[in-house]
């Protein structure tokens, strides 16, 4: 398939807006008009997509580009993460179902091209600023008509940890998308959750999902504010008020996390009930989605809480380093207060004079290169040195076979593991296992006992991370072991099934080390849209 031209990206300058501006009766009305023109300009890139799709090489008329663009902005907003933002490829991937639904007959490569084209245009990859510019006109105080540039972005690219690039929606985009968002974060969140509860009680799940998504967005916003505060101390302890503001803020945030956690777990229980009792498959699916969203909220809160707990030790260490140092003998120049802060509000012409002065003396020196012609000639005429590709020859290693001093053979290990390969719903006593092992091989009970003791503290987190389906565990219920060779507790040895679908609620993003427990072998679980059982979720409540 011929790759169509994706570089048809231009700065959007909707001139029709400025020409639409008529002389206004007064300055106030003019300002209102300018504001509306700007709001209108923010939607222009979306309309522009549908207008320009005809210019693409290929038949793209079937795709509703503005719809894809709005969906992309939605996705980016909802995926804006605690640390970074939404991932490029992830957004493309999630857009695909919608794009594919618009033109089911076309192939996936084309769907992906369309999704990519829309996303790149929302970033406006072709322009230097990677943004949009609209021109509009206003009347100055003296009645003169001035054309002004309005620059804005819809999706911006930000750097994440490890140098990767993530997407974030700008305020303009959020305002276009969700409308008036300028509300108090905390109260808005509470309101959203109360609304959610009411909706669930009345069984209106479609609305409940919308409310849950909004609640998650508030959660992300809240987390973002807290994160910035915590990082302040690292650089300058005195930059933040550790006497009152920050401790209050941390206490508040911890309360908030505890409160939300309780609240969201309650909601989770309710939705689960709704999900399990629902007859309508559509309701069931929606409830299951809602469970995912609320679990995601819980995950974000847990993440927030762990950062909050790090704050105290960090402050004390920085306090040692910064505040208790001997005061310097001379006063220094306050680079921010005396240079950066005064320069930024200046007109760029003037500000450049200051930055130029700093640049000329603050960049260090470079020694100019000077070459004699004769050296140059010699250097250019010298043939390049042949490089040895393989390097020096390796001496033949002198290998000595080490004697096999293993206590147990591989066959013995296989036999022991086969003995321990128990069905998940039938755990066994160690004594029984030992007796059975002794019948096949007198050495085997030792290996079996070792394996059983090892299983007494199973590495659940590691098993989760490695995607294990099942995990051997041993529990001491107080029964004494009656055995001719071994003493101690008669452990109950069993096989636990690990439920990976339940994991995200407890996962500490990236490490995923802590899992709260494993199943007790109660069969069945809950028949749900998810493929596996959900025992782990239930235990944690």
């Amino acid at each position, binding site marked *: 398939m011929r790759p169509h031209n994706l570089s048809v990206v231009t700065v959007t300058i909707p001139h029709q807006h400025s020409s639409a501006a008529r002389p206004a009766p007064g300055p106030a009305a003019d300002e209102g008009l300018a504001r509306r023109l700007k709001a209108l300009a923010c939607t222009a890139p979306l309309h522009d997509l549908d207008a320009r799709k005809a210019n693409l090489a290929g038949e793209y008329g079937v795709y509703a580009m503005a719809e894809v663009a709005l969906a992309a902005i939605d996705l980016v907003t909802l995926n804006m993460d605690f640390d970074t933002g939404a991932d490029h490829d992830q957004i493309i991937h999630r857009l695909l179902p919608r794009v594919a639904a618009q033109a089911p007959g076309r192939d996936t490569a084309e769907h992906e091209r369309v999704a990519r084209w829309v996303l790149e245009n929302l970033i406006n990859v072709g322009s230097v600023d990677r943004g949009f510019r609209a021109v509009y006109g206003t009347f100055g105080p003296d009645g003169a008509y001035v054309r002004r540039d309005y620059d804005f972005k819809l999706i911006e690219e930000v750097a994440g940890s490890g140098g990767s690039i993530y997407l974030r929606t700008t305020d303009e985009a959020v305002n276009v998308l969700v409308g008036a968002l300028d509300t108090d974060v905390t109260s808005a969140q509470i309101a959203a959750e109360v609304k959610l509860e009411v909706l669930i009680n009345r069984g209106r799940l479609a609305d409940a999902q919308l409310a849950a998504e909004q609640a998650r967005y508030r959660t992300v916003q809240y987390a973002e504010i807290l994160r*910035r505060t915590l990082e302040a101390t690292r650089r300058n302890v005195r930059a933040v*008020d550790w006497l009152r503001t920050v401790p209050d803020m941390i206490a508040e945030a911890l309360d908030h996390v505890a409160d939300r956690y309780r609240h969201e777990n309650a909601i989770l229980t309710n939705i689960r009930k709704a999900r399990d009792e629902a007859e309508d498959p559509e309701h069931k699916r929606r409830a299951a989605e809602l469970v995912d969203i609320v679990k995601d909220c819980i995950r974000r809160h847990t993440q927030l809480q762990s950062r909050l707990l790090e704050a105290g030790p960090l402050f004390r260490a920085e306090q040692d380093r910064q505040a208790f140092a001997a005061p*310097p003998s001379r006063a220094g120049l306050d680079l921010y207060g005396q240079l950066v802060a005064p320069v*930024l509000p200046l007109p760029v012409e003037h*500000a450049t004079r200051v930055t130029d002065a700093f640049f000329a003396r603050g960049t260090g020196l470079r020694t100019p290169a000077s070459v004699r012609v004769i050296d140059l000639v010699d250097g250019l005429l010298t043939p390049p040195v042949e490089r040895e590709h393989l390097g020096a020859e390796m001496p033949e290693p002198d290998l000595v076979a080490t004697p096999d001093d293993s206590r147990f053979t591989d066959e013995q290990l296989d036999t022991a593991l086969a003995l321990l390969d128990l069905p998940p719903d039938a755990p066994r006593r160690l004594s029984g296992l030992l007796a059975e092992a002794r019948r096949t091989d007198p050495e085997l009970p030792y290996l079996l006992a070792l394996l059983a003791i090892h299983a007494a503290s199973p590495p659940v987190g590691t098993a989760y991370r490695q995607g294990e389906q099942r995990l051997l565990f041993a529990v001491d219920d107080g029964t004494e072991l009656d055995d001719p060779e071994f003493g101690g507790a008669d452990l109950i040895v069993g096989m636990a099934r690990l439920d990976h679908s339940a994991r995200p609620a407890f996962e500490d993003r990236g490490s995923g080390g802590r899992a709260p427990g494993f199943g007790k072998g109660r069969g069945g679980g809950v028949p749900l849209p998810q493929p596996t059982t959900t025992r782990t979720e239930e235990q944690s409540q």
Partner: protein
Amino acid sequence: MTDYRETEAPAQPDVPSAGQGGTITAADAADAARLVSFGLQPKLLPARDAEYADLIRRHREDPPFARLADAVAAGLGLVVLEVSPRAGMAVAAAEDSVFAVRMGDYSRRAASDAADRFLHGLAHLAIAAMAFPRPEDLADDGYIGRITVNGIEAFVRQACRRLEETADANGENTDPATDAPGLEAAWRVYMRRSATGATKDARRLAGSTTGIIGKAVAFLVESGFLQRTGDEAGGTYRTTARYQLQVRDMAGSAAMAELLELGIVPVTDGSATLLPPDDAEALDLAADAGLPFHS
């Protein structure tokens, strides 16, 4: 600016003194020039090179030799900031020196584009401000600043955002007139430029603010002013003694003088301006930078 504090100590017998008999030999001049040439290799430290360390000691203990070396430096168009074992012979290029860095050589776009020129200069100013956030840090010889590329970007962007909010609150229209781009507020130029961007070859987008700051940081590493310590947050760096000297004694005062010439007199009592806000609710901090913004 040369550090003569210890020159009162008697010269050691094994150190040949340039002042003996009042004559300066060609060998003395060669040694002095050699010392200056060491100073022109900013990444070289006396601790790593025995000959350099010897010459540094001689400079400190033999005043006539010190005068000779300083004269050589001055003749080459260099300003001697400090001669010490920690910084070596810290020299800076005078304005019209052949060693001076010119904006046009630094970045080709900056030579032609006013916005780029400003952004490149601002990047260097912001790096210094982040490396030495408190006045004490700049004054304290033992202080080592730590910066990250993303932190600086976030810091400046947040400061610009504050100005934007203030302008909005005051009801100012900051959109520049289309025919007078030079009158656009400086912060607005920064806000307009995107922070980062994806490129086809996974490198930094050179025109983004992160790219511009990354270039400045890499340049300062070449100047022996910063040392790379890690890759987190776009690259983490720590400052060297030379950078502190350069900012304190050269760049800071030059920029201040230019600012005063523009009629802007920042009033300060020498204490830090990055302080907690009076309003306890307004705890507004930049991501990655960890500094609040108050002016």
